[in-house]
């Protein structure tokens, strides 16, 4: 089967989705994904970030599809022609989705542990040429305690359903899901149940934003200050292949290894993740490399020379003081009026 994406033709197996084909091609035609996760079944189609334009349905039925299609759940057809990065319509739709995802997001990146490795941050960086038009009050939800290892911040959640699918497919009993509807929908554990199963920690890794973060790493360091090493250990439960996030000799955090699409390569167990925070426990293989688009890497790529910032503060402050003295602050001081009259 042949599929053409942005002019690149590729041979794929039947049953491949457009997104998978685009990932095989790579480059600018790979659509961003917020909810699709190749390691989880039935995961995708929800965030609408990966919309593509199908300009030719297939060899048999060459009509174009009128609507933009979510590439993660649309199967490739023989002779299909798709526009991903080359279509302005697609780029506009993705920008719109970015805006939608951000309007109720708290934008608290400065205090969010996910900052630097956040898919939403990456998505916002690729669509950064718009100003916020949202003047309304954001929807907020109180946070919830779901156990000693994982911290859940519902305000940051973008309802990708990845953690729900992970709990369904990886852990024996699912104790959390989605409550309520619309923009009030929230991820929640069933009547304040703690989430504890041997693989629950993977929820942190699959979460594209900072809604689910590692509680043992909370506020310890910004991720870009840490050194990352690939390491492994003999684990009876999982593959034991991890990334150590270290500062000096301290292991601050352990996560699974992620590929260039920030998807976990192999899920790891909670024991590896939370209980082995010493360098002696691990066999270090070497430094861990990041994807090109990661915010963590943004300083390593060539950047335009920073703009010269003109500092006008002092002058403005002084002007302000002058105005204040005349109009507001000195109004009730009788001496000020006298001085002015002189």
């Amino acid at each position, binding site marked *: 089967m042949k599929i053409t994406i942005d002019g690149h033709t590729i041979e794929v197996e039947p049953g491949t989705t457009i997104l998978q084909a685009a990932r095989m091609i790579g480059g600018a035609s790979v659509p961003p994904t917020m909810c699709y996760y190749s390691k989880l079944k039935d995961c995708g189609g929800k965030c*609408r970030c990966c919309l593509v334009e199908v300009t030719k349905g297939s060899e048999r039925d060459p009509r174009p599809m009128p*609507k933009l299609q979510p590439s993660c759940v649309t199967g490739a057809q023989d002779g299909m022609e798709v526009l991903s990065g080359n279509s302005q319509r697609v780029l506009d*739709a993705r920008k719109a989705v970015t805006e*939608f995802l951000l309007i109720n997001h708290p934008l608290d990146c400065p205090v969010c542990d996910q900052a630097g490795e956040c898919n939403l941050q990456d998505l916002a960086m690729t669509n950064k040429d718009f100003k916020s038009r949202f003047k*309304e009050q954001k929807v907020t939800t109180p946070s919830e305690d779901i156990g000693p290892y994982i911290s859940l911040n519902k305000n940051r959640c973008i*309802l990708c359903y990845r953690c729900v699918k992970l709990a369904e497919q990886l852990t024996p009993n699912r104790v959390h899901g989605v409550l*309520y509807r619309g*923009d009030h*929908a929230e991820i929640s554990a069933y009547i304040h149940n703690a989430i504890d199963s041997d693989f629950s920690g993977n929820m942190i890794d699959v979460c594209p934003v900072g809604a689910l973060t590692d509680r043992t790493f909370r506020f310890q360091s910004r991720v870009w200050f840490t050194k990352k090493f690939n390491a492994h250990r003999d684990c009876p439960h999982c593959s034991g292949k991890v990334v150590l996030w270290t500062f000096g000799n301290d292991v601050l955090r352990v996560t699974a290894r992620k590929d260039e699409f920030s998807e976990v390569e192999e899920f790891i167990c909670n024991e590896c993740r939370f209980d082995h925070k010493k360098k002696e426990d691990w066999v270090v293989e070497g430094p861990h490399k990041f994807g090109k688009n990661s915010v963590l890497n943004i300083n390593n790529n060539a950047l335009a020379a920073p703009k010269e910032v003109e500092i006008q503060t002092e002058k403005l402050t002084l002007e302000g003081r002058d105005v204040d003295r005349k109009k507001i602050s000195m109004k009730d001081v009788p001496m000020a009026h006298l001085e002015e009259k002189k």
Partner: protein
Amino acid sequence: MGKKILTEKINIPGIREYDVYRQNGGYKSVEKALKEMTPEQLVESVKASGLRGRGGAGFPVGMKWSFIDKKSGKPRHLLVNADESEPGTFKDRYLMEFIPHLLIEGAIVSSFALEANLSYIYIRGEYMFVFKILEKAIKEAYANGWLGKNILGTGYNLDLYVHCGAGAYICGEETAQIESLEGKRGNPRIKPPFPAVSGLWNEPTVVNNVESIASIPWITLNGGEEYAKIGIGRSTGTKLISASGHIKNPGVYEIEMGMTVDEFMNSDEYLGGMIDDRPLKALIPGGSSVQILPPQYIFKTANGDDRLMSYESWSDGGPVTGSSLGSGGFIVYNDTACIVRNTWNLSRFYHHESCGQCSPCREGTGWMEKILYRIEHGQGTEEDVDLLWDIQANIEGNTICPLGDAAAWPVAAAIRHFREEFEYHIRFPEKIKNRNHFREEPMEKVRQLLVK
């Protein structure tokens, strides 16, 4: 007097009871279908009738039936969609409340045509009293041998259940309804696969509206060709219209397709004209999801033809100057109505009912509602109207299910046809602060203020 198919016998006293219904020719179509016809013949006759789905989209029922996957050998199901939650639509309730056996009769014939042995009626939770009426009617049908094992000695088995939803608009969408019936959260599924291939419990399922199913007995008895003779063009048969708003005679009417809108609105037999003879300001022809129309496009299309009560005629002109017959929820507004307030109200509904699965609809509906609330309460700005337009354009077509489109269209049409009202709200917050602005001063009187 137009031809009546669904509501012909609805005024017979006691028709809700089995005995009266049977004496008046009830369940004859089941006898005919099971004894004299094959499922294929039934599907053919429905195809020949040209009956289009009455739930809103107007997809031909016969075509939908012929798509059902019979090759896989999996059990098949009929799911009757009685989750009628569209604001302005209340036709199914009327049918189920007063003549419940008609629906059950239609469901038996349709299930036989689809060779389904297990069928469901999914009714919305707010219709609890109708649920009880249907339960009683099904019990009577079981007692008289119309349901259960070996119906009429033909060897055909059918179990029919009524399932009560918990009150969610989204469960009227067919795949969300299937999810809900399976006991899950009512989130629409991603299509394909379509329900005709993989629906309820991954088995082939056909989801049809109550009104479509209730038309099946007549088609079976009189033949699809007879049904196709009623109506106009590809809009065959009769349609129930539930009319509400500023009209003299609100209620449910059965009309033949192809009647002019003028006749339907102004003749005494039907709506009887506007209440207090105030001027008509706007009309929503097919339930809240379709485009609202200003007076110049209601009785005439943009080409100057008469607007008829049919699927084609209402959608003539596309979204710009046309609308859609939808589910037949006629909402009529006179000059005292405020379109901004109405749009805000509809938007609030879609915000409340969005399932929260895909981001454009989840975030966009809430955003639109908040902006419309601000405009309605005098805190809008000039950019808000363009922003609303942008948001609706970004939602439309980019969502999993049609709820996103349904939330976007009313806002788009309101801005397209009644932009001056939005501007009036934004520029003169003093005039609208008491919420009785158009009762005191209709738009005609204040329009000159906007020109300056």
